[in-house]
């Protein structure tokens, strides 16, 4: 097999194995060097299919290059490097190894040239991301990990059904644009959307990610949903259903994040919100929209990881993650606060941050297609993002009241990782021309015009005003919010309990009836046949008594006459 047919994912997979074997500085070296090697390898892959291998009767294309694939693989590799830097002193070796194998899955999907390869790497991600959730180490993490695994394995089965249907129907395993028109394409779409945390199963994300360790959630935030976005861009560009799905996700994320008390769960809901922007863009499907989705995914991975890093430092230092228990941390954690705020500004697409230069492309795509309602809802959502993530997260974690906590600031490696990503957020915001040439289509878009900047400043600053005016309405309560997962966590178990009780009742009813029938037949038996041994003739059963011979003769005579009568009739 030629060297160019080896996916860069294999470097990360090898690194994952080495992390398990090595110790100390050698392991650290692997954690830090392998992602950079991967990044180098990603940029060595030319456009197009790099050769085929025959497997059964299929021609597998393990590596296919292209600008879109390279873009996603690049940000994944950067993510592994900075995530590794952030995590390596705190995370257990098996969490690091799982994170690298998980990232290998994501990079593998980026370069998968056919549906079978894509599916393999897809399942690799499901497997190792589950392990990262379990690395949270608490009973809650174990339970959430099981729910996460069930959801993703189910999604994998749905995707597999769809892929097989497409292969049988078209005879091709090529990754090519399609529309959800028949059963198998719908199955593929649903399988991908489950990973994108689309409704009605968005709940898995906010259920599982916040249960992982402070370092684990940084990795989890980056790969699964964004790989799903890449798969959507590759397979379903312009699928009209996605516009509605995306808009729903955008609003869902905002509302649930507003209700939430746990800092990392707020961020988890805002992943759904942000992925909603991308899904909506894929649904619009023009070159501008797909560029926007790709650019937004790139920027999003960086600022969302940054936000999870700052939340992770807080949890690592204080052991607390609830808004009701935190507050006032800016006094002793200036670096974490500053980086958290930069991440929050970027996610709110404030001018001069990466969110502004990428997310506004999606709005522009809606404008170009004359989709008034989509544009208006996306604009409202931009205001909502500032509300639920841009201010709410930093405000409740680092400011609000003084919780009395005086934790130390981030350890140096975590701080450095945050500074790197915060720097990238601003760099891409100030110099968007660094990112635009990497996008799949030629970019004809000017992010900074005075009017646009002013419009967004009005929108965002008045959202900020709304936050502080409505602060009394947003008092944190020690609650969780029900989601569709209530159906299988509560309703399903309640239903099973109900059926169980019903069957139990039925069983008791049958048992009681049986006992009654037994008693009844015993009584009958005793009455007619019973107790032949007693001396007293009257106590014996009817047929067990001794009857006079005359009675017998009479009966026989009667029976014979009846027989004769019947014979002649």
């Amino acid at each position: 097999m030629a060297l160019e047919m080896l996916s860069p994912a294999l470097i990360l997979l090898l690194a994952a194995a080495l992390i398990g074997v090595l110790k100390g500085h050698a392991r650290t070296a692997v954690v830090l060097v392998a992602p950079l090697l991967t990044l180098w390898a990603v940029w060595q892959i030319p456009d197009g299919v790099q050769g085929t291998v025959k497997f059964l009767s299929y021609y597998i294309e393990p590596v296919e290059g292209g600008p879109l694939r390279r873009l996603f693989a690049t940000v994944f590799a950067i993510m592994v490097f900075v995530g590794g830097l952030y995590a390596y002193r705190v995370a257990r070796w098996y969490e690091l190894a799982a994170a690298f194998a998980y990232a290998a899955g994501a990079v593998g999907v980026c370069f998968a040239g056919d549906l079978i390869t894509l599916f393999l790497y897809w399942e690799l991600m499901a497997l190792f991301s589950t392990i990262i959730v379990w690395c949270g180490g608490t009973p809650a993490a174990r339970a959430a990990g099981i729910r996460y695994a069930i959801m993703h394995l189910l999604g994998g089965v749905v995707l597999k059904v769809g892929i097989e249907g497409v292969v049988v129907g078209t005879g091709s395993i090529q990754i090519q644009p399609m529309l959800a028109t028949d059963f198998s394409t719908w199955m593929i779409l649903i399988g991908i959307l489950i990973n994108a945390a689309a409704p009605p199963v968005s709940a898995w994300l906010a259920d599982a990610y916040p249960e992982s360790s402070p370092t684990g959630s940084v990795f989890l935030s980056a790969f699964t949903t964004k790989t799903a976005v890449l798969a959507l861009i590759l397979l379903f560009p312009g699928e009209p259903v996605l516009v509605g799905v995306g808009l729903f996700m955008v609003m869902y994320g905002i509302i649930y994040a507003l209700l939430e008390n746990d800092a990392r769960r707020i961020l988890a809901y805002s992943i759904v919100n942000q992925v909603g922007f991308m899904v909506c863009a894929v649904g619009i499907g023009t070159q501008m929209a797909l560029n926007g989705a790709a650019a937004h995914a790139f920027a999003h991975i960086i600022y969302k990881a940054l936000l999870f890093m700052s939340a992770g430092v807080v949890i690592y230092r204080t052991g607390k993650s609830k808004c009701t228990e935190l507050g006032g941390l800016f006094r002793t954690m200036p670096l974490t606060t500053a980086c958290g705020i930069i991440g929050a500004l970027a996610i709110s697409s404030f001018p001069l941050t990466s969110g502004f230069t990428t997310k506004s492309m999606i709005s522009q795509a809606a404008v170009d297609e004359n989709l008034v309602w989509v544009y208006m809802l996306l604009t409202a959502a931009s205001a909502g993002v500032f509300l639920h993530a841009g201010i709410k997260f930093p405000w409740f974690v680092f400011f609000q009241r003084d919780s009395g906590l005086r934790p130390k600031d981030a350890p140096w490696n975590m701080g450095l990782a945050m500074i790197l990503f915060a720097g990238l957020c601003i760099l891409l915001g100030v110099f968007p021309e660094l990112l635009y040439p990497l996008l799949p289509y030629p970019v004809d878009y000017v992010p900074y015009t005075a009017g646009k900047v002013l419009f967004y400043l009005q929108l965002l600053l008045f959202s900020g005003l709304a936050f502080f005016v409505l602060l009394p309405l947003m008092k944190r309560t020690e609650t969780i919010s029900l989601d569709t997962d209530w159906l299988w966590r509560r309703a399903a178990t309640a239903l099973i309990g109900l059926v169980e009780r019903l069957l139990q009742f039925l069983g008791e009813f049958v048992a009681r009836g049986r006992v009654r029938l037994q008693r009844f037949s015993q009584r009958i038996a005793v009455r007619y046949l019973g107790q032949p041994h007693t001396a007293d003739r009257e106590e014996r059963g009817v047929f067990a008594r001794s009857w006079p011979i005359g009675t017998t003769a009479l009966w026989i005579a009667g029976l014979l006459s009846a027989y004769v009568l019947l014979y002649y009739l």
Partner: protein
Amino acid sequence: MANQDEPLHWLVRPATIRKLWIGFGIVLAAVVLAQAVVYIKGYFGVDAWFGFGAVYGFVCCLLMVLVAKLLGLVLKRSQDYYDEPDEDTGHGQDAGQNVSSTEEPRNGA
């Protein structure tokens, strides 16, 4: 832990907060008034109106908070709602508690 006689951080003194509000108010007024000078290109008519962004942002946030509040009445449950009553210990309420700051450098790097 916070010291009782620790002086208030300058950022949370009432005087500073008042100044911050005044500053914020000025910025808010400025971004609206700037529309007199800077032309905002409206795509659908209404979004070119004077102060549209400001009003739209504020009203949308108001609506979202109110909708969230109303949904919260239906959806909110106590945070141990899903905890199994017969589960042995802990219920793992705090995801991060397993990582204490004493276990900091693990692999000696």
